């Protein structure tokens, strides 16, 4: 701490910011204390280096002043607004052409969209139709839930109940042995 205080006073001594009393006290201390004298010599040497070993570049200051002044004038000038009307028009035309071209290509590859105003049948499929059974059932198969499941509160049972609960296999012909075919 004492060393720190001594060095701080030496620093101010070099800068000439100590008052007369402090300055004289330090000078006496330096005369009597070799450590203080050595520190003062080191700080003085450092100060000399700081003031002489870092020279500035040679600058043409007249030219620099003119350049700065011109740069200020340039920066101060109101911005020039250029009109790009023709560019805007050209861009609009190009965009419109692109849209027309894209539409044409889509129609070429996909055809015109058709619409009858509703989600009606586009393709009618005529296929085999079931015939109404007219004989007695050959066999009745129960495919619904068991009576127990149907009666219970299980949600799975409800799903099963919603499905067809019965499949009837009927035949219009009398049962025959396949080994005794009529042909």
């Amino acid at each position, binding site marked *: 701490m004492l060393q720190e205080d001594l060095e*701080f006073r030496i*620093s101010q001594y070099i800068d000439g910011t100590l008052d007369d009393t402090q300055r004289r006290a330090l000078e006496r201390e330096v005369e009597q204390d070799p450590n203080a004298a050595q520190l003062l010599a080191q700080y003085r040497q*450092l100060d000399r280096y700081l003031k002489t070993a870092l020279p500035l*570049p*040679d600058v*043409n200051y007249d030219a620099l002043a003119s350049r*700065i002044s*011109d740069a200020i004038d340039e920066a101060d000038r109101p911005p020039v607004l250029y009109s790009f009307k023709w560019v805007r028009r050209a861009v609009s035309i190009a965009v419109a052409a692109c849209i027309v071209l894209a539409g044409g290509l889509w129609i070429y590859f996909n055809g015109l969209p058709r619409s009858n105003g509703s989600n009606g049948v586009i393709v009618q499929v005529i296929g085999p139709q079931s015939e109404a059974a007219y004989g007695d059932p050959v066999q009745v198969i129960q495919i619904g839930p068991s009576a127990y499941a149907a009666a219970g509160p299980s949600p799975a049972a409800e799903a099963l109940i919603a499905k067809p609960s019965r499949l009837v296999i009927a035949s219009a012909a009398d049962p025959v042995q396949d080994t005794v075919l009529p042909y």
Partner: protein
Amino acid sequence: MDPQSARNPAPEGQGQLSDGVLVEQALNGQKAAFDELIRRYQRQAVAVSYRLLGNSNDALEVTQDAFIKAYRSLETIQKPEAFGGWLMRIVSNLSLNYRRSRKTRAQLPLDDLLETGGSQRASSTAGSEWMARTGNPHQTLESVEMGQRLHEALQQLPEKQRLAIIMFTIEQMPQKEVADILGISVEAVKWHVFQGRKRLKEMLKDHL
């Protein structure tokens, strides 16, 4: 007379006018008054910026930017008499920002502003620019090396200590002005200068 001076005739006896009067005149549209402020402070601005950046082209560019910024915000200056300190604050802030970003900017053609001899120009193209473009051709190799070491040591100091050393010790600006620029008290300037010196002494102990 240059075209700018012709457009804005310089006030009579401008060289003797105080900074405050020149600021007022510049605010009233007399560009020549601001040109006088440029002439007064450009060297100090280049010096502070150069010592912070270590590159003359960067320092010139920052100096130019600082004056443009000062001109544009001149109406915000609170103490026109303290224009120099206000400008140095702009210079130091721009330099520190420039140093932090170290962005690669398109170099302005500023070489013509640097007055160099052929051999000096050749030496400046390699490595650090320190000492390469100086006005003292008799500088010894020893002092060139010392300058490089000192520059490197300065760059390692904390910002406030570095600025205090550069402005007060090297540029010998008044302590009060340095205090205003750094936004600290005069006592704090003394302390930062001392702390900076102490660190430099440790870093350069083999040379002291």
